[in-house]
């Protein structure tokens, strides 16, 4: 028991800072590395459909309709369920821990930063959404042939690692399954491992997504990027 208490103290004390520092420094370092792989270029202006404001005299909300129609050809149209689950999963993955009461009370006590937080019921709901989405991804990986051919044990491991902090946090909060202290050790251990791994593993897509879509000129880029790879 003394060992458990000691372990918990380390995990909720110095290890939190170590994990956060590695997480933030890793993201900054990897972003710089990615940036240095690019060079400036002319922005490309690809207009897939004629600008409806120029070709037709339509006004108000109707002028957005051609753009909405265009969404049908994107992933939102071709895989609507997966797109919805993916978007909801990633949003909840971020906002749940950042606006969780328990976390923010500790944060205020530690550094005096008062962040707003959701009610406990809302946080519970968001956590359950993350868990269900995670389950959806897991079943998809195991059952759909097109995903199964790409799946490696590492993919399953990373998915479980992304889900575990939420599962253990939920169980600890409701004091289910295991002793509270032991569940907290698992919760903090997995969360810190996840933070440390984000910049250096496949979770790196968190940085690359914004980079590849917003900074690099390509057919599918968003906004007006002005850089290209210099591999």
């Amino acid at each position, binding site marked *: 028991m003394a060992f458990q208490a000691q372990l918990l103290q380390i995990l909720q004390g110095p290890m939190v800072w170590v994990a956060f520092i590695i997480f933030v420094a890793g993201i900054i370092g990897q972003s710089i590395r990615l940036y240095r*792989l690019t060079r400036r270029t002319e922005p490309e202006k690809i207009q897939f459909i004629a600008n409806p404001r120029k070709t037709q005299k339509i006004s108000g909300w109707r002028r957005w309709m051609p753009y909405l129609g265009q969404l049908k050809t994107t992933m939102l149209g071709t895989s609507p369920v997966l797109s919805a689950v993916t978007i909801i999963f990633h949003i909840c993955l971020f906002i749940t821990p950042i606006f969780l009461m328990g976390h923010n009370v500790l944060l205020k006590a530690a550094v005096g930063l008062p962040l707003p937080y959701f009610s406990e019921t809302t946080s519970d709901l968001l956590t359950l959404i993350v868990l269900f989405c995670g389950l959806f991804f897991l079943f998809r990986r195991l059952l759909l042939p097109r995903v199964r*051919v790409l799946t*490696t044990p590492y993919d399953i491991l990373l998915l479980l690692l992304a889900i575990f902090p939420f599962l253990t946090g939920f169980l600890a909060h409701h004091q289910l399954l295991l002793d509270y202290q032991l569940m907290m050790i698992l919760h903090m251990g997995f969360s810190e491992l996840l933070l440390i791994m984000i910049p250096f593993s*496949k979770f*790196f897509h968190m940085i*690359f997504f914004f980079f590849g879509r917003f900074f*690099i000129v390509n057919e*599918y880029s968003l906004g007006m990027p002005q850089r290209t*790879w210099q*591999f």
Partner: protein
Amino acid sequence: MAHTDIDAAPIQRILKNNKREIKLGLKVCAHCSLCAESCFLYAATKDPKYMPSYKFINSIGRLYRKNGKVSREELTKIRDIVWHDCVLCSRCYCPFGINIPSLIALARQACRTQDLYREYDKEPMGTAT
């Protein structure tokens, strides 16, 4: 040794010169399979072997992991992936922005160094080994 029937050096040169691009592509690919629908061959057949991600992971990805030390038989399979299962129409779409056609083109380059390519006059559609 199985890989003595090919000369790994030129393949290794290609891998070395394009290491950053290949490594980044393999690292970022989340194996989500969302690129599938963007391949017209996949759309027509629903066969996972036509998925753009499957094609680059099992061609240039395999060469990279083995550092070019593959048997001729294995390289022939890679040739079939990058020539018979892909026409390099470059319409594939990756939600993260991985340039899949560029990676498949590298695999074609690697195959060419070993005189493995598609002879269109002798190999009509659907005659992959």
